[in-house]
């Protein structure tokens, strides 16, 4: 299934934040299925990405940096974490 327009905007935003946290990924190809492992992103970088998303959307996302590498493997996983939080904020 093709992602909706909202989802595509979010994907672009997550990718942009990843590039700002890790500037050497400026030209790297990053899609929904890209694994953070292959991008060389560790728990601290991922935590920084999540916190930037929290700030931009003024929401709180429950997670622990200690197991973030197990629970978040791809850009898609970040969206799965973020979307319900955004939904519950708008309702």
């Amino acid at each position, binding site marked *: 299934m093709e992602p909706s327009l909202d989802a595509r905007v979010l994907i672009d935003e997550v990718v942009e934040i990843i590039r700002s946290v890790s500037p050497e990924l400026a030209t790297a190809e990053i899609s929904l299925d890209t694994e953070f492992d292959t991008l060389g992103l560790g728990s601290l970088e991922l935590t920084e990405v999540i916190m930037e998303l929290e700030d931009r959307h003024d929401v709180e996302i429950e*997670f*622990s*940096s200690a197991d973030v590498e197990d629970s978040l493997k791809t850009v898609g996983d970040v969206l799965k974490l973020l979307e319900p939080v955004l939904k519950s904020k708008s309702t």
Partner: protein
Amino acid sequence: MSANRIVITGIGGICGLGNNAKDIWAAMKKGVDGVSVLSDPSLEQLKTKTAGQVSDIPDIGLKNNDTITMDRFSRLAVNAAHEAFGQSGLAVNEENSSRFGAVIGTAICGAEAVEEGYQMLLVEGKKRTSVFTVPRIMPGAPAGQVSMVLGLQGPVFGVTSACSSANHAFISAIDQIRSGRADVMLAGGTEAPLTFGSLRAWESLRVLSKGLCRPFSANRDGLVLGEGAGVAVLETLEHATKRGANILCEVAGGGMSADAGNIVAPTLDGPVRAIRACLADSDLNPEDIQYINAHGTATKANDKTESDAIREVFGKMAEEIAISSTKSMHGHCLGASGALELIACVNAIEEGIAPPTINFDEADPECGLDYTANVANDRKIDAAISNSFAFGGTNAVVAVKRFEA
């Protein structure tokens, strides 16, 4: 080889469990939770609600001229050192003062003074900070302050390696004594990290628990910070015997290693090498150890990796050893942790009691050893090790054993 043997003749401490080592040990044995709701009103807007807090620092007769130069982390260290030195029965005079030293570990620095300084500059718009800002903040300040209060004029310095700072301090002190630079070393650690900015920074790291510290329990959800200090008096056996000192236990040795891996994520190999190095330095075999005071921070990663490391070093026997994380009671006091945990080890040997890991609700199959769940355990303990594994991958393990002449 009596010149190389080192004994402990005094120990002092202060943390959420009590204002002296005796009270701290009594609370540990009972499984008291020293973690409480943050009491400072300026911390109300934090997400973090609990910490191991020192309610009031006992007056040990310091003058205002002394305390005005001290951040809270120095105050705590000086109190713990004063208690330990008092128990040792040592007296400093012109002849021996240059043979007495101190090494105090701290993970961060004088956090309260940092915050006050920025408050003045950035919030109040002042053009200067307090004249005492620099001397209060310095990570070497607690060691310097201890030397001034007690008159120690030998090797005196601070050490820092995040959460293993106190154990690195013990090993540095052992080295000063073994190398012949000192006869007596006060060693330990201190931390007072419960300030607004410091707690906010820990919140950002996303490793803090929602409330209780539950090391090794399946439902553990991160660490709980604490403040405190601990200091032990280490001296050569010869020095202690000559003056007829009461010997609490023998310092067997220490081992250090670095993961050279990740700044926050632990490896298995680093802790394994540190424990093995400690046993080798102590001339102890794995089967000699009956109690392990674990690093046990209650993060998912540490507790699993530490359990694996213990299994790797001790093999099948790992299941027979009493293990506990007293951080469940005093919280993670960062640079002070190893020193508060030495209070547990020294008393565990003396009284034959392994203190518990409290808030232990449910065994985690990923850990799987005997963590002395919730209730202290009577057992003969002749030798114990205390693990400290830090951010930065800097590991330090210390061993103590029953003193036998």
